[in-house]
């Protein structure tokens, strides 16, 4: 699968991709280990905060307020960023965003760009577009470098190479950096990346980044990171091009006091990540002389228009939901067929595809609610999942197709049965008769026919009890015997 990009338009259905992924024992072990470690770290630093729930609530309200006033805050950001010497561009979709960045990169006179890890540029497959235009993009985040050199695909929002272990990473670096003697200790690998990239930081004149927050009040941009590769890309190049979804705006500088507490603790389990950079436009004495920001819609306004799903846009990309998700922890990220995997990916990806693709993703959940519990801005992911399942069903059963849809007909029949006690009892009797040839001696059913087979594909079903609760209740004596 290496080399291919994660594209929801061409990705296989989640249940099919998940089944393949489940066969990769090494990957599953790596994902389990990494998510266990990160969850334990998060739990420890969240427990330190007696006001964590109040912070989450403030985070939720700030994000909701921002979406309600998105047009105002984007225009305010544009005004202030422009005044500070930045150039603001707008892009309706991925294609337009790619074209703008490619044009700007070429105009900067560089045939190479250094890049900060950015989910937004992954979303629009920017690197391929740059390569096609003769501009080589160099990923500088350690995990992204591992992915790029290994011709792999990201599997996690914050730690994109968490499906790889140190031996696998060593093998990639040995091969691609020509270091046959390289050790497999994490610090050996980090040192190799430091030496490999330093020359590029000092040489390449154009940087490309995403953004964690755009501050409307000041026109500033904030990026949080750990390694210092972000700071390198933000300060050493002559030209900086930042690509941000329109959802990344934050009303005021003061709001950072909430986000800078929620994000690091949720994302990497640190009280604060090693580096946060905030810059505003251009500064004649400090950093790039030319600064561009591309504000991209790419279906975000579609999500905004759906009141029940709008909270999807509140996401600050911490990936806590991925680490907590019992589905993601089993399948890893690639099965989602999107750079946004896990619970947030299950709601974000189909909506970014305007519900035309990735329709199996809202079903990639047991609705256990672990994602909601850890979300720093309280996105009710299970609620949105159900809403989107509803949308998928409506879409697939609209018009004549719905009339002949077996599942929809079955659901309608089921509803009819549940509405009447008489019909319900009859159905129970019928069920006991119908299942009797399928049940084994131990009382378990290992195989169901037709559409029902989905249930027994991965687990057994216990046969119905000989006596129902209602039967027992009616038979029992007055004194409860």
């Amino acid at each position, binding site marked *: 699968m290496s080399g291919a990009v994660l594209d929801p338009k061409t990705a296989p259905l989640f249940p099919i991709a998940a089944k393949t992924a489940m066969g990769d024992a090494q990957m599953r072990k790596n994902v389990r280990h990494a998510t266990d470690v990160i969850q334990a770290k998060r739990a420890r630093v969240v427990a330190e905060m007696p006001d964590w729930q109040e912070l989450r609530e403030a985070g939720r309200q700030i994000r909701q*307020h921002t979406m309600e006033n998105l047009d105002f805050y984007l225009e305010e950001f544009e005004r202030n960023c422009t005044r500070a010497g930045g150039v603001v561009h707008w892009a*309706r979709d991925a294609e337009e965003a790619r074209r703008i960045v490619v044009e700007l990169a070429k105009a900067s006179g560089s045939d190479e760009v250094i890049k900060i890890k950015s989910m937004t540029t992954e979303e629009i497959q920017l690197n391929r577009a740059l390569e096609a235009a003769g501009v080589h993009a160099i990923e500088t985040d350690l995990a992204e470098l591992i992915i790029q050199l290994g011709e792999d695909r990201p599997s996690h929002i914050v730690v994109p190479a968490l499906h790889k272990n140190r031996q696998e990473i060593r093998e990639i670096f040995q091969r691609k950096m020509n270091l046959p003697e390289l050790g497999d200790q994490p610090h050996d690998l980090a040192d190799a990346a*430091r030496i490999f990239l330093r020359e590029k930081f000092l040489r390449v004149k154009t940087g490309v980044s995403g953004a964690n927050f755009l501050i409307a009040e000041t026109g500033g941009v904030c990026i949080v990171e*750990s390694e*210092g*590769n972000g700071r390198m890309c933000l300060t050493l190049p002559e030209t900086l091009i930042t690509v941000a979804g329109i959802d990344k705006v934050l009303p005021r500088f003061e709001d950072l006091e909430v986000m800078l507490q929620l994000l690091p603790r949720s994302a990497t389990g640190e009280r604060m990540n090693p580096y946060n950079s905030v810059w505003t*436009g251009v500064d004649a004495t400090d950093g790039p002389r030319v600064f561009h920001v591309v504000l991209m819609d790419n279906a975000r306004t579609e999500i905004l228009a759906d009141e029940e799903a709008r909270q999807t846009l509140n996401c600050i990309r911490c990936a806590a939901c991925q680490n907590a998700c019992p589905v993601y922890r089993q399948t890893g990220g690639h099965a989602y067929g999107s750079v946004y995997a896990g619970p947030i990916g299950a709601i974000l990806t189909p909506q970014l595809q305007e519900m035309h693709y990735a329709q199996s993703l809202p079903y990639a959940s047991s609705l256990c609610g672990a994602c909601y519990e850890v979300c720093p801005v309280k996105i009710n992911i299970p609620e949105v999942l159900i809403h989107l399942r509803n949308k998928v069903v409506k879409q697939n059963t609209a018009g004549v197709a719905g009339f002949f849809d077996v599942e929809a007909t079955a659901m309608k029949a089921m509803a009819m049965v549940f509405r009447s006690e008489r019909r319900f009892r009859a159905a129970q009797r019928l069920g006991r008769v119908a299942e009797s040839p399928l049940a084994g001696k131990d009382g378990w059913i290992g195989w169901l026919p037709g559409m029902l087979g989905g249930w027994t594909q991965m687990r057994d079903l216990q046969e119905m009890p000989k006596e129902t609760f209602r039967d027992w209740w009616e038979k029992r004596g007055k004194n409860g015997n």
Partner: protein
Amino acid sequence: MATDMVTNSARAEVLRRIREAKGGASSAEAALIGWDAIARQYKQAASRTREAVLDLLEDRLRDYDARVMRVVEAEVGAAVAKMMHDHGVRRIVVPGGLRAEWLSGEFEFVVDEGLSAAELDGMDGVMTGATVAIAETGTVVLQNTAGQGRRVVTLVPDYHLCVVRVQDVVETVPEAIARLEGTADLATTFVSGPSATADIEMTRIKGVHGPRFLDVILAG
């Protein structure tokens, strides 16, 4: 230029879509009222004694692999000499405007007057002050001002020695943000420990691209 026309119509279209999605345009007044109504019940002010705040900062800095020394203001020069000696650095870059009495005579301090990245790469380290430090998170905040300088100066050298005055130490993140508000448009970097990564099996490794070593002197 063609791009301007494209971006202008894209701008109008994106804003139109947003307004349509929300059922109308927002205004400065609506934004102001809505923002004021956001519930901020989280902890904003300090709750510890000053001594406990300084202890906490020290503890949190150490927890993230920074070395810390606490000295009275008059002993900063001696502390700088000790830190530099322990770390084995001799030639250090300093931004313009750093207090002269903090510098120790036995070492070479090169004032940054627009040094190139390659020149900075050749330095043993960098020494700066700080605008504010946050105890709860073990963070020092640097801005492009006298004694702190350009962002690149504290990035390329491998060793960063930072002098934090005790009056600039706050307990919480909201206190720090309040202090930074007046100069929010300056290039600002929050530094919490040396550069690090956990990208390999979630094992925290100190030192990738930024300075691999951070020493902090708490003065006053």
